[in-house]
């Protein structure tokens, strides 16, 4: 399989959020604003690429039976190293993305890709897969948080860390706070998944109906 195909796989065909339904917990938690969504997506992409690369490199020396605990140790170590390095060398970036790093540890996309892909494939393919999955995760977060932020706060792209108040789309009396709380996360995710399934089924059944 070509590198390009491995990369594109994560964007739509096997989008981690909409297709594989992985990492639902961080998805629900951070898709409250586009700014948070992009931050989490970028941090997760970086960790995915790194952990896929490491797991792919050591895949031949790790015995089959204990591979899962090994991956957990490797991923946890890598995430902590990234966290420390960011705090030490790029404090400004750490201030913005730092809160997402601990959340990545509980993101099962990372472990799932290590197990399903990187443990069986060559280094470059694994890196391409990490990139694709990461960008796919970021795209999904942006879609969900765009809907939730607009309906919940009436404003999109608000970025308090950069002193940007956001673009106002809805008047205050039309916004409903529930959309940025947990129930709104489930409602948005459910409706989006339903829409995507409906669209893909319609497409796969061909033009027989229309």
């Amino acid at each position: 399989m070509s590198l390009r195909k491995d990369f594109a796989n994560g964007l739509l065909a096997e989008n981690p959020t909409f297709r594989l339904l992985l990492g639902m917990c961080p998805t629900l938690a951070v898709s409250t604003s586009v700014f948070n969504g992009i931050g989490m997506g970028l941090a997760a992409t970086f960790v995915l690429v790194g952990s896929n690369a490491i797991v792919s490199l050591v895949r031949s020396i790790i015995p089959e039976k204990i591979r899962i605990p090994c991956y957990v140790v490797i991923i946890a170590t890598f995430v902590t190293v990234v966290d420390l390095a960011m705090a030490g060398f790029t404090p400004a970036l750490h201030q913005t993305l730092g809160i997402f790093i601990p959340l990545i540890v509980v993101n099962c996309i990372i472990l799932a890709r290590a197990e399903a892909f990187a443990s069986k494939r060559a280094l470059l393919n694994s890196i391409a897969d990490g990139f694709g999955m990461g960008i796919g995760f970021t795209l999904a977060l942006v879609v969900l948080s765009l809907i939730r932020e607009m309906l919940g706060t009436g404003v999109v792209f608000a970025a308090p860390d950069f002193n940007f108040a956001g673009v106002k789309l809805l008047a205050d009396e039309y916004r409903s706070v529930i959309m940025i709380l947990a129930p709104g996360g489930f409602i948005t995710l459910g409706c989006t998944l339903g829409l995507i399934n409906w669209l893909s089924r319609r497409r796969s059944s061909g033009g027989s109906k229309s």
Partner: protein
Amino acid sequence: MRDTIRLSVILGIICVISALVLSGMYSLTRDRIEQANARKLEEALAQVLPGQNSFKAFEDLGNALNGSVGSVTEVYLASGDDSGGIAAKAAPAGYGGPIEMVVGIARDGAVRGVRIISQSETPGLGTEVTRDAFTGQFEGRSTPESLKVKQDGGSIDAVTGATISSRAVTRGVSDVLDVFHRLSALGVLAGGSSSAGEEEQN
């Protein structure tokens, strides 16, 4: 049996390597992280007490006030030309965890500035308390009694839908003000009533 030992040894080796990598990274970044945190704190202190750029940590807070300091965690005495004020760090419990904030109080006992350093409130709701529109309300206030949100009979406008977060920030400010008054009564603050206390040192 032999397999069990072999697998344990391999897993053990991987853990040891991880521990080595982690400790190496930790010692490599420890100083830088401490410096960055110290710089961040200094910036925050200078922001809540404008015109002051020299602060001295007050070490003995718990003992001096018999341990009852509310949500206040650290106190910095302003020194230099216009000394007598304090900047204090407080961490009142909000809706999603402690809200870390710094509060500056001028020597006349009026709040000069309030800044939220870190919080984990609900995005879009509780996070509104970090904005100047909310924190600006505290400036110039000097009596802890009036520092309550309107729902509790005070005069602070709580953020709509975020009464718990607003209440927490308000309690943080009033705790700092309370600590200021008690330190002032003890005479540990430079200037004002503390001139006698200063002479006693050495």
